[in-house]
């Protein structure tokens, strides 16, 4: 009998002990993977959103910084307005290359005149836009016309219909943007012309009319001249244009980054406690098992099995249990994170994008390795003690 078969016999022989070790390994691997997936997913998502916006500075009405961040990241509808003459004032600031105004709107909640309830809508100026238009030119080779829109990853035409209804207005969805894991995935983008047409027709088509205040915009995206420091330009905008706050893209979503750091610390504490407790529990279980099997292992030694053979069979047993538990833990965690990702985003108020297959594999392997290391570490001392015991004493006790 080789030591693998001996380990397997021992695993099936005491199912309670095996279940305890499997559950501990499952918990350690699952928790480690969940922490890593959520925090890395949130970080990637923030990075992708900043890249997608493509602006060096976003100018928003003073005091509306958090509202804008929540709208862009969590798709929380925001109704914020500032006079549109700020666009000219910002454009006159030295170092500003392009300024593009945007309107932030929202579809109605639970109304049959809107296909999707409370969807974040962004209207842009096609004459100055540098975020959606270049992407459109590349993707579909044309610009958006009246009544046309592009949507985030999760914006789609309802089953059995040809258009998306917004305030009773039929909008044709031309394309979907790549996922970012943020509110942008649930956002619809169309031109100023379409937004004004929806507002014009909404009193007759919708349950409630869409109101866009006259001569107002919600935000202005700024791209600075190459070689100019965006920080200097932001300071200059702050000094020269009253009633606005310029947000530099590296400083965007600062409150979310702080929240992520807090979450990382608390998760690491929980993971540390779980890991420590699991280690103690597995150590105890293996000590009990080693005591129970004292005579059996003594007989094995008396029949000619070496110390190394006994030690290896015990460690093999621990390794098999760790791999089973760790395997179930990582599969279950991956499945749960995929299924509940939107709920996680909502509960933690953090954006999230699922990692690439390669990155996921690395994290899964790391989770499994942690489970294997933990179980092997906890089982090492009892396994070493029992394998180095004198066979005659072991059989007599």
């Amino acid at each position, binding site marked *: 009998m080789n030591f693998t078969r001996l380990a397997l016999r021992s695993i099936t022989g005491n199912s309670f002990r095996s279940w305890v070790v499997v559950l501990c390994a499952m918990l350690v691997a699952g928790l480690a993977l969940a922490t890593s997936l959520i925090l890395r997913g949130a970080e990637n998502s923030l990075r992708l959103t900043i890249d997608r916006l493509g602006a060096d500075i976003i100018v928003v009405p003073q005091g509306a910084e958090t509202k804008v961040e929540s709208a862009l990241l969590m798709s929380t509808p925001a109704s914020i307005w500032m006079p549109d003459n700020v666009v000219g004032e910002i454009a006159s600031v030295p170092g500003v290359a392009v300024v593009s105004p945007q309107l932030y709107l929202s579809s109605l909640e*639970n*109304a*049959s005149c809107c296909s999707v*309830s409370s969807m974040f809508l962004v209207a842009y100026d096609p004459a100055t836009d540098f975020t959606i238009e270049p992407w459109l030119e590349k993707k579909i080779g044309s610009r958006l016309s009246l009544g046309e829109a592009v949507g985030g990853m999760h914006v789609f035409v*309802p089953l059995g219909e040809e258009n998306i209804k917004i305030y009773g207005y039929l909008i044709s969805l031309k394309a979907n943007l790549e996922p970012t894991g943020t509110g942008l995935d*649930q956002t619809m983008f169309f031109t100023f012309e379409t937004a004004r047409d929806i507002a014009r027709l909404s009193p007759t088509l919708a*349950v409630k009319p869409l109101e866009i205040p006259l001569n107002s915009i919600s935000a202005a995206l700024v791209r600075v001249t190459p070689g100019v420091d965006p920080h200097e330009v932001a300071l200059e905008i702050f000094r020269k244009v009253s009633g606005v706050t310029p947000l530099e893209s590296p400083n965007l979503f600062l409150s979310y980054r702080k929240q992520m750091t807090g979450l990382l610390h608390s998760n690491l504490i929980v993971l540390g406690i779980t890991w420590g407790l699991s280690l103690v529990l597995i150590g105890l279980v293996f000590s009990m098992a080693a005591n129970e099997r004292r005579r059996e292992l003594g007989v094995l030694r008396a029949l000619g099995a070496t110390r190394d053979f006994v030690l290896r069979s015990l460690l093999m047993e621990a390794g098999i249990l760790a791999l089973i538990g760790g395997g179930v833990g990582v599969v279950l965690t991956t499945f749960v994170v995929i*299924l509940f990702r*939107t709920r996680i985003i*909502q509960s933690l108020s953090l954006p999230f994008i699922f990692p690439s297959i390669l990155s996921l594999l690395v994290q899964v392997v790391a989770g499994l390795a942690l489970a294997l290391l933990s179980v092997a570490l906890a089982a090492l001392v009892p396994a070493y003690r029992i394998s180095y015991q004198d066979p005659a004493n072991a059989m007599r006790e």
Partner: protein
Amino acid sequence: MNKIAGVLIIILALVIGILPQFTDCQSQGKELTLTTGKTVPMKCHWTAIAEIGMAVPLIAQGIMLFLSKRKETRLALSVTNIILGIFVVLFPTWLIGVCANNMMLCNNLMKPTLILCGALVIVIGLITFIMAYRKVESVA
């Protein structure tokens, strides 16, 4: 093992039957307002009702699995559990569906929970099937 599987099926059936009643849009006080002013329930409500129809036979299956002693009975129970598990998943995803906005509770909590529970019912069904099938084979 069959007793554990029976208890797990009963627990999952309770989740499948009860949770949707508290996570559909109707339970959150949300209804679809038509242009006529009339309100109607959203489709997630009908999924929640359909899942009661899945949960009741699953509870009976769980009890029978817990009490069954014959391998052939377990084999048959496992197959019906797998079929019921598939339908638990199909109602919120394909047959009826839930609301389109994934920020709604029915979309981000009810649907994934039903998929997870349905998948677990299928996995448990497969495990009990393999175990019963092996025992039937070894007896033959």
